[in-house]
């Protein structure tokens, strides 16, 4: 049977491709870790959290304190705004909105996820910052808060669609089981549906957090890029991603600064990967 040979060929080709894809992707870890190796060999762990970043001094000083703090502020801040909004909206779409409105809003969310981050950053910097300066009366509006604001708009669709999917996946029988007891809808949502959707909602929020933490263009344009340790949400700061985008172009290949930037990349990578891993763990544990 000639077809059998084709089958065997396809089987091997596909396995080869799967291995290849994984290898290529793994090499991302290897490269970033490898290029940062000289940095780890030369620096103390304390430098990780030091808030000095002076790559051009002699000798240069590299501490990631400012960047780590900025990344956390902007990403957590985005969650503070996006989580309540996203969960409400997800529940609204799944349980309350008329079918047509739900479909319209979900299409809109789909469109919003398709708008590239540079456009969000651009609109944020050209509209939100001047507005923020005017309303709050601060001399200069770039801040982690503004970055969070724009990040929250960027990640809210992930939370909404995660919440929506979690609720939509609950069999109608659970709602019926509530309704036949003559209780109200909010009671059913709170006592039956929320617990059932809980785990999936958490993984949607975690996913969104990872996105917010790794996002570059929007924070580059909005966070202010100062080398000062941000002590509040309304400070300026320079998240890890912005640091890399700002300095990788000028760092001479092989210089201490170059390796330090890859070290920053590795930190970001480990941070986001651990989030991804926890989602995967959460999901696989939930299924069994």
């Amino acid at each position, binding site marked *: 049977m000639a077809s059998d040979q084709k089958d065997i060929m396809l089987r091997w080709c596909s396995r080869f491709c799967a291995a290849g894809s994984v290898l290529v992707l793994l090499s991302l870890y290897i490269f970033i870790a490898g290029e940062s190796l000289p940095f780890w060999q030369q620096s103390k762990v304390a430098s990780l959290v030091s808030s000095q970043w002076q790559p051009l001094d002699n000798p240069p000083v590299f501490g990631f304190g400012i960047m780590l703090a900025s990344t956390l502020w902007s990403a957590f801040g985005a969650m503070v705004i996006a989580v309540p909004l996203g969960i409400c909206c997800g529940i609204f779409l799944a349980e309350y909105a008329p079918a047509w409105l739900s479909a319209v809003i979900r299409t809109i969310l789909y469109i919003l996820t398709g708008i590239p981050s540079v456009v969000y950053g651009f609109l944020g910097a050209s509209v939100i910052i001047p507005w923020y300066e005017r309303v709050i009366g601060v001399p200069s509006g770039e801040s982690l808060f503004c970055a969070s604001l724009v990040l929250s708009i960027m990640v809210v669709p992930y939370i909404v669609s995660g919440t929506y999917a979690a609720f939509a996946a609950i069999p109608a029988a659970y709602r019926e089981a509530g309704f036949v007891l003559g209780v109200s809808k909010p009671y059913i949502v709170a006592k039956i549906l929320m617990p059932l959707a809980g785990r999936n909602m958490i993984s949607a929020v975690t996913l969104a957090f990872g996105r917010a933490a790794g996002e570059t263009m929007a924070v580059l344009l909005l966070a202010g890029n100062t*080398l000062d340790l941000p002590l509040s949400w309304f400070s300026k700061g320079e998240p890890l991603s912005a640091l890399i985008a700002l300095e990788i172009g000028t760092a001479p290949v092989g210089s201490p600064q170059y390796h330090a930037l890859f070290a920053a990349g590795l930190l970001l990578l480990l941070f986001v990967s651990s989030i991804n891993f926890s989602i995967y763990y959460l999901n696989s544990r939930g299924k069994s």
Partner: protein
Amino acid sequence: QPAKDLSIKIGGSSTLAPVVAKLADDYTEKYKTWKKVKDSFSDEPIAIFVATGGSGFGVKSATNGTVDIGLVSRVVTEAEKQKLPNHKLYTVGYDALTIAVHPQNPVAKVKPNLTKDEVKHIFSGEIKTWKQLDAALPDRPIVLAIRDLGGGASQAFDEAVMKGTPVAKEAIQFPSMGALAGKVQENVDAVGYVSTGLVQQNKGKIAVLSVDGVEPTNENIVSGKYTIARPLILIAKAQPDERQQEFINYLLSDTGLKTLEDMGFVPAKNK
């Protein structure tokens, strides 16, 4: 890959990149193909690419050969020169870093002249509000706008003014001179070191302060009286290929220097 050999890649200083980009555009517009530049060349269309990223990017890319011409707007250090043994440096002009503020900032009227020390104290963060600079000024914080560390401007400013004193950490870093100038145009409380080129480009939108009684006029820059200045340099290969040489010649020609001047810089021949 013959196309690779014929194209010219240029990159570096965000101050100089717009000038070179403009000239490259004029050049391609004028000649279209290499054959029209010189009859011995083949009939290939002219292909020129200009990247930006700051003077640091210019030095780095010229060193490792990813660009054919590096753009730098600061002094190239000896250490850097040693890594560029097969290269030739052309100073095409000069730029001054003006102490620039928003035109509506009262400092432009109340205190149009600062001493270098005052400038230093402003940028180091010792003077935090305009009122601290002069009692007649409003009690509002000063917003510092600086180039990021890879920019030529930040190094030139350090040499001319700060002399090793670190710039205040609250200073907002901008990835290009254009962005820095933009902040000064938008924000009444901002002060930054803006290239004369951008001041000329944005006439009326940026006010400039004198330093130690010297205004950053062309004459003062050329004569060296205004000291916060920096050279504009092309790093080319010592033996560029013929087409690159043609284009470098064009950059250094009168037309080239005229464009540089039109864009607000001081061309090298004036000095």
